[in-house]
């Protein structure tokens, strides 16, 4: 698996770098950018939700923090969005600490529900705040500004390569985490938190490290989104359905694996776009029907995610014995 995985990754990388040479169709380029942005979010989520097993369904709050901080800084103060990206990451990491402090005491579903609540609170607060653009949101100024200004009109290619770069950087962070003691500790926490503690692992400390990395990287994706779309509002950057989609990407590909979320993003975006193109025109929800049905089918038949197809299936622990007799 390991060698095959590396080969596959290199092949994918080569294809990704060369992709714009193969097509100049804007729709295809857009789809590819979308795919990579989605993948980056899934990979960022994976540090917390996959490795550490803390299933967050509120990551849109971090995404939105990235989008809003860089946008506000550039619209109001003329700060370069590249600096805004860093600032957004810091704000999101701070928000992550704020969220993690109460929520890390919660387990499993309780944690997931609490993060939904946090995401919804952030969305409602922004929705109601005039200073933050309220429900209307912000338009970013159009007009080619070059690299430092982070707005590209003549061609979408700069966005493509920035998205690719950000994705690779995020995968790189995952790779480093995964190979350091932090990665081992996160997986230990996910498997058996009490046993991890008995070996000297501080749960809050390491969950918090995962949260900070995950939130910060997610926010960077948010800034990229704002610069590419040049428009943000609570609905598109802070909604719970975005949070869930971020999680779905990682789950679909295989949570807790390095390349799973990337695979997941490719497949999910492909399904989404294909169903939209094939059935979306009717405006009657056919695309949703197909998309939803496919999600269910995948969840039922490939519960460990697509990455599970490539790994040897570890034998299941022996099933508990069947009841001997029934007393009706």
């Amino acid at each position, binding site marked *: 698996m390991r060698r095959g995985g590396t080969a596959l990754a290199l092949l994918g990388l080569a294809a990704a770098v060369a992709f714009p040479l193969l097509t100049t169709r804007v729709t295809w380029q857009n789809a590819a950018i979308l795919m990579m942005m989605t993948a980056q979010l899934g990979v960022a989520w994976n540090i917390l939700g996959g490795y550490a097993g803390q299933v967050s369904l509120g990551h849109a709050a971090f995404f939105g923090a990235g989008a809003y901080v860089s946008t506000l800084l550039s619209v109001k103060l003329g700060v370069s969005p590249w600096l805004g990206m860093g600032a957004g990451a810091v704000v999101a990491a701070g928000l992550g600490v704020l969220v993690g402090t109460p929520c890390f005491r919660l387990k499993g579903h309780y944690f997931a529900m609490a993060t939904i609540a946090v995401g919804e609170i952030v969305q409602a607060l922004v929705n109601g705040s005039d200073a933050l653009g309220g429900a209307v949101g912000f338009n970013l100024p159009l007009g080619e500004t070059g690299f430092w200004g982070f707005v590209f009109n003549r061609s979408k290619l700069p966005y493509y390569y920035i998205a690719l770069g950000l994705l690779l950087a995020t995968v790189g962070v995952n790779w480093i985490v995964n190979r350091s*003691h932090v990665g081992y500790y996160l*997986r230990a926490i996910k498997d058996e938190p009490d046993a991890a*503690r008995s070996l000297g692992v501080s749960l809050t400390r390491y969950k918090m490290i995962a949260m900070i990395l995950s939130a910060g990287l997610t926010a960077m994706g948010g800034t990229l989104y704002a610069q590419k779309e040049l428009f943000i509002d609570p609905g598109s950057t802070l909604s719970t359905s975005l949070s869930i989609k971020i999680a779905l990407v990682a789950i679909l590909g295989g949570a807790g694996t390095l390349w799973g979320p990337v695979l997941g993003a490719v497949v999910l975006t492909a399904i989404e776009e294909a169903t939209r193109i094939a059935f979306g025109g009717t405006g009657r929800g056919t695309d949703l029907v197909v998309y939803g049905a496919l999600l269910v089918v995948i969840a039922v038949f490939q519960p460990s995610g697509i990455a599970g197809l490539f790994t040897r299936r570890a034998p299941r622990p022996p099933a508990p014995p069947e009841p001997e007799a029934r007393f009706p």
Partner: protein
Amino acid sequence: MSAPLLEVRGLTKRFGGLTANEDVGFTLREGEIMGLIGPNGAGKTTVFNALAGFFPPTSGTILLDGAPVEGLPPEAIAARGVARTFQIVRIFRSMTVLENVMVGAMLRHRAVPKAAVVARETLDFTGLGRRAHDPAAQLTVAEQKRLELTRALATGPRLLLLDEVMAGLTASEVQEAVELVKRIRDRGIACVVVEHVMEGIMPIADRMVVLENGRKIAEGPPAAISVDPNVIRAYLGEGYLAPGP
């Protein structure tokens, strides 16, 4: 003279109305093996949970090298050199055997390659070396218990708390486990061994503490404990006060 490695005084733990430990006290010296026995529900695991910091005692003191540690969280206690196993095994199921032990080794060796070397050595010491690269979930129950012990040992403890590591093992496996505990002691690591099976613990313990209904009912060398009428009553009931088999 220096303080004993571990000193427990007046340890009491209540869960709501239920008293799981009441006024338990004992001391342990460096490199000693202590057996902690008692019938089901006597409060043995509860003592471990208090020692390892899993929950603070209702009252009482726990001194490690003379410094109070009660109420500290498990990770802090682990850092001070106390390691434990769990009665119901809690191995990391998504990892290999080696990785499990590496997580333990990382307490003293953060660098992954160094942790791997330490983990490997520890596995060889406990006799699990040949299974190093197998998924932990594939081990037999006996091997899983040994893996937990190895993982705890890899943290470089001075005190090891073993909760029924011999339960459910075959006679020859019990023999191996007994040998292993002796070799651990020979490394200068003190052990508190909780067992139901007296045969496992009697030959190696320097001293025994017996709990019943949360209270200490006897303490002393194994030979004395095995003929102590209180202990025999606790284990076998009133009718068996005549010398046992």
